[in-house]
């Protein structure tokens, strides 16, 4: 009897954990999709008609076994790159991808020069 109960609890827990994982994946995808009929909202945030339809389509595609990348590509083919918050790497948005790294390195360099200069001044 106890053994049976343990098995039932195990199955209930594992299925609820699986559901949680699946819904987390869905939320991650919704968050990276822009609601194009709303003002500054993602599909995850919006309750608009458009957002709820996109949610249904994403759910269906996940059920069909499509990957996150495939879902984004499908929606980009229909609505353009505007629908995703994270743009794909292209020559037009080269700066968008590399500027933060460039600024980071440049900032480090400037700090290094300033520290070096102040040390040199102190030594003198």
């Amino acid at each position: 009897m106890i053994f049976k109960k343990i098995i039932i609890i195990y199955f209930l827990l594992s299925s609820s954990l699986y559901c949680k994982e699946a819904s987390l994946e869905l939320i991650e995808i919704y968050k990276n999709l822009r609601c194009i009929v709303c003002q500054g909202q993602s599909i995850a945030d919006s309750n608009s008609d458009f957002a709820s339809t996109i949610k249904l389509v994403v759910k269906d595609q996940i059920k069909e076994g499509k990957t996150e990348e495939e879902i984004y590509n499908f929606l980009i083919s229909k609505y353009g790159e505007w629908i995703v918050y994270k743009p794909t790497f292209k020559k037009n948005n080269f700066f968008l991808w590399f500027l933060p790294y460039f600024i980071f390195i440049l900032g480090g360099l400037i700090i290094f020069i300033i520290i070096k200069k102040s040390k040199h001044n102190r030594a003198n």
Partner: protein
Amino acid sequence: MRINFSKIIIFSFVIFLISVFWMGLKKDNNYSTKNLTGSEIGNFKLPSIYSSDIISEEALKQNQFTLINFFASWCAPCRLEHKYLIKLARQNKNIKILGVNFKDKKKNVTNFLNELGDPYDYIVEDRDGKASILFGTYGIPETILINKELIIIKKVIGPLDQTQYEEILKLTQ
């Protein structure tokens, strides 16, 4: 004269930022799916509203031109554009019109068509709106003109008006 290296860097960075913001301001960010023009419509299978037939893209290959119109009985702008659809159906035999009924009820569609006339050669239903995503629509009314090869020739977002009606006539002559 001693060149101040950090000042030059800061100055060029500010100039760069201003030019990026300037370009951003000038860029048109209005959303449109008009860039779908020239691409092929995807595969679809939609149930006919008044029969058990399933309409797919294969059926549209037999028409010289097909006008795919997304409408609903509850949509006020759809009422406004309906007269142009009626005129197109009467005046241009090259066009077949496929009505995609969006998130609606059969009874309401019937009342809508009885009141305003039925310009459609086929009417299919999209109960949950999922099929409309395949066509890149985000609201209704929307109209897509395709040719025999299923290539999108024109996409109208919002209700059809006199100018668009004339343009569709011209394109399908």
